[in-house]
């Protein structure tokens, strides 16, 4: 069952929450944490959280990396990456520059890969059908984010009402770019994408 190496001694720098253990409260640490039991409350790590298939985490999670093979209910903020494996199930929002959702994983919630924009509504449908690794899924989400500034000057063909609210909430977030015409959106997207990539690196 356990994918990781079994411990023969109690030494070492690994923390494991066994399958019958329930921790409710706040957990912080600077080392990897493997959860095979239940953790409820709040979880802050500067290293990697591994939720194994028997693990259940009902907590707001703030980590560097998260690998979810079990169940997570709550929001995950990761400074590096979040991976939902094929056995992983999650309800909540993911905020991480790299998000990997493999085939078989179940997920409901927002995905935000960063980039200073408030999480766009249009990203939600894009997050579900993603079954490819992050490297290929990233282009699918980037245009969604890039579409929001386009929507702000109300030039987008079908702007949801929420987009207007967001636009009103953050009017001076960026100097308003000249609104591209609605038709050549693809061209605009391509241009935006390049700009975004440049900014990130």
């Amino acid at each position: 069952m356990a994918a990781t190496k079994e411990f023969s001694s109690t030494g070492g720098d690994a923390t494991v929450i066994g399958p019958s253990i329930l921790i409710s409260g706040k957990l912080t640490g600077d080392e990897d944490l493997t959860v095979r039991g239940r953790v409820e409350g709040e979880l802050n790590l500067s290293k990697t959280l591994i939720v194994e298939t028997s693990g259940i985490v009902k907590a707001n999670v703030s980590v560097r990396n998260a690998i979810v093979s079990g169940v997570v209910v709550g929001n995950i903020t990761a400074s590096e990456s979040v991976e939902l494996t094929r056995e992983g199930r999650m309800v909540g929002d993911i905020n991480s520059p790299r998000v990997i959702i493999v085939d078989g994983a179940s997920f409901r919630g927002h995905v935000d890969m960063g980039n200073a924009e408030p999480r766009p509504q249009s990203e939600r449908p894009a997050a579900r059908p993603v079954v490819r690794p992050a490297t290929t899924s990233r282009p699918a989400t980037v245009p969604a984010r890039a579409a929001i500034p386009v929507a702000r000057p109300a030039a987008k063909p079908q702007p949801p009402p929420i987009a207007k609210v967001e636009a009103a909430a953050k009017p001076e977030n960026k100097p308003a770019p000249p609104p591209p015409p609605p038709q050549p959106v693809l061209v605009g997207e391509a241009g935006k994408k390049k700009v975004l990539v440049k900014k990130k690196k």
Partner: protein
Amino acid sequence: MANTIIGSSIVIDGEISGDEDLVIQGTVKGKISLKESLFVEASGVVEADIEVQNVDIAGRVTGNIAATDKVELKADCRVVGDVRAPRILIADGASFKGNVDMDVKER
């Protein structure tokens, strides 16, 4: 032996319960209730009330300890709190302040 290990850099503030052995090398505040054994290693710091079957303490514990079987205070431990268990062992070199009650009718 033990499935659950709380590593040395981990801090838990809250409640831990379970049916398996627990090794603490880090810090736990709040409450611990187990049906098996608790091991507080030398680097472990526990500020919690403890209800377990057995407990071995080599680190620091502040709080009341109730064990259904045995409490063992190892040589370099520091324990402050009341201890209640049918069997209580205090090793030479252990530091302990609190009440001891071995008159437990369980078992």
